[in-house]
Each structure stands twice: as C-alpha cells, then as structure tokens.
C-alpha cells in the first residue's frame, strides 16, 4: 500500500530524509518512530503528496508520488500534529467543509456517521474553538477519515493529550485497524507504538531499524530467561554448563540467562538447576520494553555517526 525507494528530501544544505526504503502492507499499522527533528513529518508530507521528494520515488495506494498527487490526496487521510480545526465553525461545519472538498457522496450522512462514531454528535453545533484538546483530536481524526481513505497518516495523534484523552484516541485507532485500513503512525510514544503497531521503523533522517517489535527486540537482545533462586549456591553460573546458554548475568539477585529457544530450553535449564541443588522460585521471560530498545538503537546510531 505504501512503497518508498531511496526517498530523500533536502532543504538547502540540510537533509531531512535520506534514502528511505520501506514497504507497508494493506491493513498494517506501521509505526514510524524517531526523535523530534528526525524527519518523520517530512516523510508523511512526501508520502501524502504535500511536498515533493528531492530524489527517490514512492507509491501510495497505487499512485505515484509526484505524478498522481491529486489521486494520492483523494485516497489518503492525514491527521496533522495539531488538530488544525476551524475554531469559528461548528464541529459539523468543520466536517461538512472537508467532506465537500473530498467530494464525498453524501456529506451530511458521512459527517453524522463519524460524529456518532466518535461520540461528538450531541456537540455537533458547538464551535470547535470551545472543544477540549481530546475532543479536538477526535474531531480531527473524524475529518481524516470522512472520505474513507485507504491509507491514514497519523502524526503524533496523542501528543499533548491527557492520559484519558490519549486512551480514547488509541482506542479509536484500535477500532480502525479492524477495517482493512493501512495506518502509518508517527509517534515518539513508544508504549503506544508497541501496543498498536504490527511493525515499526526506527528512523533518524535515515532508517535505523525495521521490523516487528518482538523481532527487533529478539534481533537485538536475543531471548532471555529470568530465574529467581532461593539462596543461590555460590558458583552456580559457572556450574551451569549447558551448551545452548549464550550468557548469564546477575540482576538484583536473579539470573538473567540468554537463550535461543526458551520454549524448548527452559525445562532443561530448570532440571539442571535442580540437579545443582538450586531452589527455583520462579522462571519467566525477560520482556524488554520497546523504549529500552529504542534508546539503545538511537544511542548506537549516534555513536556510529
């Protein structure tokens, strides 16, 4: 649904996006993660046919960026970083205006549908300027969906929202993923990305890493089993001589053991520990948070630069 090859954008001497290659499948929720100034918004603007790439090529919803820009804009929805609503217009008028610009068949019906879906129907005649941040964001999301786009670009959809409003927006995104819509989610909220995205790209002017969050974590850290022992015998690390163990570390009294295939290897590990006289209290898999991985990857990228 989205494909980019060597997509690059410069502003004078500054390179905002460099040689971006990616492919996003239909129905996928794709997280595009990176720090402020990484070029995330510039990437969205290029893919939404708002600005031209300096070099490289991209297709979105089957249309080529730069050649079929109008068709791209007709088939994508964009939620910008700020809601960008007309404060002097009512919620309904805001939606009707955009529905008519997109040439939606029955603007009134479609506006009503989304106002009801996002629980704003009762406030349809209220000026958007009087809305809370969360309501504005919901209305902006409704606006981005009015014309039933195949691809939805969401730029920091929960930025600046209180936790409750952010949850409402996240829940809405969750409901959208079930509708065969491709969602390109730009965020630096990593918990959000981990919760919502099928795959993520770590991006800082160029692509740093790409894959499913679990794959990326596994690729970077391997899989690790945490074993808590009661009174761990001295020298237990050295005594654990199983061939599949890659590394053993101590963390707050627990053993953190790097393995390849925990499902197969954990029972053998536990059996061996018992044989060595250890009293096993608990065995669990260490789950690295995406945030931790993100920071490690970005630090590594800084060091490489």
């Amino acid at each position, binding site marked *: 649904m989205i494909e980019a090859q060597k997509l690059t954008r410069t*502003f004078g001497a500054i390179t905002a996006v460099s040689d971006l290659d990616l492919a996003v499948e239909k129905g996928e929720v794709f997280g595009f993660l990176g720090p402020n100034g990484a070029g995330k918004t510039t990437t969205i*603007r290029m893919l*939404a046919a*708002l*600005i*031209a790439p300096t070099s490289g090529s991209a297709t979105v919803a089957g249309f080529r960026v730069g050649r079929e820009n*109008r*068709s791209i*804009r*007709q088939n*994508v*929805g*964009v939620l*910008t970083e*700020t*809601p*960008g*609503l*007309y*404060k*002097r*217009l009512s919620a309904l*008028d805001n939606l009707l*205006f*955009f529905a*008519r*610009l*997109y*040439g939606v068949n029955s603007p009134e019906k479609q506006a009503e549908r989304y106002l009801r879906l996002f629980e704003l129907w009762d406030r349809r005649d209220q000026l958007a300027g009087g809305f809370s941040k969360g309501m504005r964001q919901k209305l*902006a999301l409704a*606006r*981005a969906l009015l014309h039933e786009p195949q691809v939805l670009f969401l730029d920091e959809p929960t930025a600046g929202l209180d936790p409750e409003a952010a949850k409402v927006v996240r829940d809405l995104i969750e409901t959208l993923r079930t509708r065969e819509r491709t969602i390109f989610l730009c965020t630096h909220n990593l918990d959000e990305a981990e919760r919502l995205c099928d795959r993520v790209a770590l991006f800082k002017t160029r692509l740093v890493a790409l894959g499913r969050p679990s794959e990326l974590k596994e690729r970077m850290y391997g899989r690790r089993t945490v074993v808590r022992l009661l009174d761990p015998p001295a020298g237990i690390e050295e005594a654990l001589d199983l061939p599949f163990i890659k590394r053993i570390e101590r963390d707050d009294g627990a053993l953190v053991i790097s393995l390849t295939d925990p499902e197969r290897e954990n029972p053998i590990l536990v059996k061996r520990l018992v044989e060595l006289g250890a009293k096993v209290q608990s065995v669990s898999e260490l789950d690295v948070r995406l945030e931790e991985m993100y920071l490690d990857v970005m630090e590594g990228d800084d060091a490489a630069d």
Partner: protein
Amino acid sequence: MRRIKVILVKEWRESARNKMILFGAIFLPLFMVAAALVMVYQGKGIDVPAAEVALFNTALMYFLILPAIIPLAIAAYSIIGEKEQGSLEPLLATPISDLELFLGKALASVIPSLIITWASFGLFIGVCILLLGGLPPHVLTPPWIAAIFGLTPLLSLFSVGVTMLVSSRASDARAAYQISSFAVIPAIVPLILYTSRKTLVSLWLIGLEAVVLVAAGAIVLYLAIKVFQREQILTRWK
C-alpha cells in the same frame, strides 16, 4: 469550480463570525456613504468651480476606497487565520488544487467587497434623491459609472493580491492588514492628482487608471499565485 464554491462558503461562514470583519463590512461603507453625501451636498450649486471639482472627486474617491479596503480584512484573516489555527496543512492534504484554493480565497474577499461597494453606491444615489430632491450634477455620468463598475473590480483584485502576498509572510492579521493598507493608494492618488488640475474626473482618467491597475494587478496576482503553492506554504510560510 465545485471546490472553489466550497471554499467561498466556508470563508464567508468564518467571516460572519469575525467581529472585526463584520464591523469593517457594515460601518465603513455607511461612513463612506455619509461622507460622500456631505461632499455632494456641499458641492451642489457651489460658485467656486475648483471647490466643486474637489468635492465631487472626493465623493467618488470614497466609493473607490471601499473595494480596496474591505477585502483587506477578509483576505488577511483568511490567510493568517488558517496559519493561527494550523488548518492549512489539513486543507492542503485534500485534493484541492493550488489555483482552486487561491481563487476560493481571493473571490471570498473580492465578491463581498464589490457587493458592498455597489450597494453603498445604490444607497448613496437613493439618499441623494430623497434628501436632495434629485441627483446632483456630475453623479451617474459616464466617468462615474465607469469608475464604479469598471475600476472597483480591478481595485479589489489588486488589494486582495497585495494582502495575500503580505499575509504569506506575516503571522499577525492586524500587522498584515496595516501593511496591506498601501493597496488603497491606487484608489486615491490618481483622483487627488486629477483634482489638483481642477478638472472633474473624465473617462480618459478612468481608462488610464484601469490600464495601470490591470498591469499592476497582473504582477501582484502573478506573485501571489506563485507564493500560493503547496510546497511554499508548508515549508516557507511563517
């Protein structure tokens, strides 16, 4: 055409809720009509030809200032309002073309300014007939009619072009409004110069001003359309 109409309707809905624009669109024309009435009342039957010329030329000038000044506020708020609300990017993300957007914004300022100017002129004529017992001399002559119906659209377009250019660089609607006020100059300078020659406005003067305005307007509108490109708006507008 459909999208231009959609922009027009939206702009007018927003303008109708903007007190500054409403104030300018209602009270300024009334003030100009009153001022023009005073001029022609004083000029009617005056024995000093130079004074008569000055008074009637000034009366006409009020109706030429209107189409230049009314669109300033509408156009300035139309662009700066979008900037302040952050609504330009969602708008540019729609399939609307740059030209459609430009025309929608420009016509949203030009059309009401012309309607208000012509309505004000109609009011002026009506009040003249009612209060003065008939039309004063030199009013509704060919030069006046040419000026009211021929020059006003050109003045309005020129004014809108200047305001759009200024607004693309400004971040404050009042500042843009004040700077763009220079667009009124083509409406008043020729008449002041002509009045100094102690001659009533002629078709020749109106024709000359129209030629100058077409040339200046074409340059200003060309530049305004040039800065009204998606890429420019998103990356260069402040």
